């Protein structure tokens, strides 16, 4: 069992967990993830390590309650435990000095992107951070991002903060202004990462995306996370999660993400039904 040391509710639709996992905290690098199983009958899900503290032996993950597992996890609090945490998995993001790096995060990606953005900043890059949400209250880790970014761009769908629109609109602005970007890093929902890759392609800006497909073991065994990148079959858990966004076969990836949608719905409905019965 892995103890939850602290929790926070950074936005109304997300929850942050600091989990006691000293071995993972000691070795985690930007871009890596863990696989978590909440309880005995639970499924294994991959979650990006949003932060880690080797001294205190904790890792931080941020979860948006969408399906059964993320909801179950979101009901836990400090002092509770999760059944399994394993990692750090995947290859660490290759950090280099490129020049100007634009990191763009949507949804859970706003937090998942943070360690990567920080590492690029520490490597001497000029960092432009772009985060966005439906409205101001849903922006994740704006303050932390602001601390490290040379330039901060915020978008909200309703215009309650920053530019009205989506994160990709802010990216379009930057490119339309003719500003030179040496690398774009996108972390978030697949649909957003695909849009980012499509926007940067004509500009020839190298674009790195962090993929989060269906995964079970996370160690290269099941092949559930396979994607086609540059015409080759890759396993996200051992060859990724970072790939060249211009090379990813997005349609295939998006289709694969729907494989278990009906089952996910059944699981969630059953869970909600049980939750209301016991309430």
């Amino acid at each position, binding site marked *: 069992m892995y103890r939850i040391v602290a929790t926070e509710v950074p936005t109304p639709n997300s929850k942050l967990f600091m989990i006691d996992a000293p071995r993972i905290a000691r*070795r985690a690098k930007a871009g890596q993830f863990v696989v978590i199983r909440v309880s005995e*009958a639970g*499924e294994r899900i991959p979650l990006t390590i949003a932060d880690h503290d080797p001294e205190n032996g904790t890792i931080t993950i941020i979860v948006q309650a969408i399906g059964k597992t993320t909801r179950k996890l979101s009901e836990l609090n400090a002092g509770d435990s999760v059944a399994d945490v394993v990692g750090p998995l995947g290859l660490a993001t290759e950090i280099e000095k490129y020049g100007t790096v634009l990191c763009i995060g949507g949804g859970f990606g706003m937090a998942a992107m943070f360690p990567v953005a920080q590492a690029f900043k520490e490597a001497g890059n000029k960092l432009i951070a772009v985060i966005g949400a439906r409205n101001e209250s849903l922006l994740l880790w704006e303050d932390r991002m602001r601390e490290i970014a040379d330039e901060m761009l915020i978008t909200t769908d309703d215009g309650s903060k920053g530019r009205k629109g989506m994160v990709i609109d802010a990216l379009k602005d930057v490119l339309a202004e003719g500003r030179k970007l040496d690398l774009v890093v996108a972390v978030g929902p697949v649909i957003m990462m695909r849009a980012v890759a499509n926007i940067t392609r004509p500009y020839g800006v190298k674009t790195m995306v962090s993929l989060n497909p269906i995964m079970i073991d996370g160690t290269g065994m099941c092949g559930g996370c396979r994607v086609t990148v540059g015409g080759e*079959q890759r396993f996200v858990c051992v060859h990724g999660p970072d790939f060249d966004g211009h090379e990813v076969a997005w349609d295939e990836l998006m289709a694969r993400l729907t494989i278990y949608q009906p089952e*996910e719905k059944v*699981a969630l409905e059953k869970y909600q039904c049980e939750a209301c019965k016991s309430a």
Partner: protein
Amino acid sequence: MPLKPERQPMPVQDPGVRARNFDEVALGYSPEQAQAEASRCIQCKKPTCRMGCPVEVEIPQFIKHLRDGDLPNAVKALKSKNNLPAICGRVCPQETQCEAQCILAKKGTSVAIGRLERFVADWEGSQGITVPELLPATGRKVAIVGSGPAGLTAAADLARLGHSVTIFEALHVPGGVLSYGIPPFRLPRDVTRSEIDYVRSLGVEIQTNWIVGKTIDVEEMFSEGFEAVFLGTGAGLPQFMGVPGENLNGVFSANEFLVRVNLMKAYLFPEYDTPVKIGKRVAVIGAGNVAMDAARVSLRLGAEQVTIVYRRSEAEIPARHEELVNAREEGVAFKLLTAPTRVLGNEKGWVVGLECQGMDLGEPDASGRRRPVPKPGSEFVLDTDSVIVAIGTSPNPLIPQSTKGLKTGKHGTIVADESTGATSMEGVWAGGDAVTGAATVISAMGAGKRAAAAIHEYLISRTPAKLGLLR
């Protein structure tokens, strides 16, 4: 002259019933059957059966005790060489190993050694397992990576020799392929669990959720006081055919399919959270044990039609004979001399068919088996909505990726000496599928056993005074 008594048949669940449940197929001998079968053994002075066994089980000895009704000593004889007999008795390919060497096989049917092994092991299980005497503690620490058959065997042998053994397992459950791969109807989970409990009872510590190469690496293990490391990491990355359409929805590696069902208990969804997708018409590519398992699991999940597609002929089928027979009895269909050329999908990205080509057998290839060659004009489409690819695995890349100085072969297998398991790194041994590529439980156990002997020798040859100098 009286005829030699025939081999005792194994009682099994009725095929029509068992094809819809996950209970064990083979029910095991009754005590009377076991004794009758044991009496068929003629107790050869020079037992050839032992030479067919990768761990050299004292076969005639345990059978003799069984015949005489002395079960405690049968257990002792059996377990002097084999730490996991209840597992071996169920999943070993005895027909190509010990039983193939049995003298009775020359004129009739061999002694059913595997079934007797299972009987003796199950008897012990029902009595409560007794812990054998261990040698005095040496205080030497050994790390075993992977808790599959190779790792469990090496761990048990080293613990019996008095060493302090820790197993590091990547998954949340120990057992490796015994837990995630082989389905419960062939190897019930309580059997695996009690064999693992036995290994624990020898003082072996099992740490789950540790991925060596990620959570810790091999160099770190040495700095944390381990003097020897055994890598039994198993087969990893599933292989795919390399034909178009393989990433369509509805195409699964056998590993994914079996991991969902066996490890994550997807057959109990939504009681358990992990789902599994099964179509009405399933095509399983390949004809090894894993393919048979995937086909038979598909039936049990409710598939209406399950077809094994295999590019060679029946004679080349690599699966254990008994599993082939079981699969057939349960209603699995076989399309032999058939190779898939493309997976066909609909506009939503789901599988709707498997384009296949008929094959002929040509000259033998490097494996000694006749090479399948395409038969012109024999293309056809198999109507299917799920495809399970069971054509083998490549070794897991995580340890070679993270361990400098560990030599690997061209397919990513760890290079290790066949008789000792020694790798290119001092203090590091390896065995099982990680070295050989996908093979059998018993060959992995054999490798674990040989490595344990080599590690023991290494440890006793290293006096404590030398420790600081060597590393």
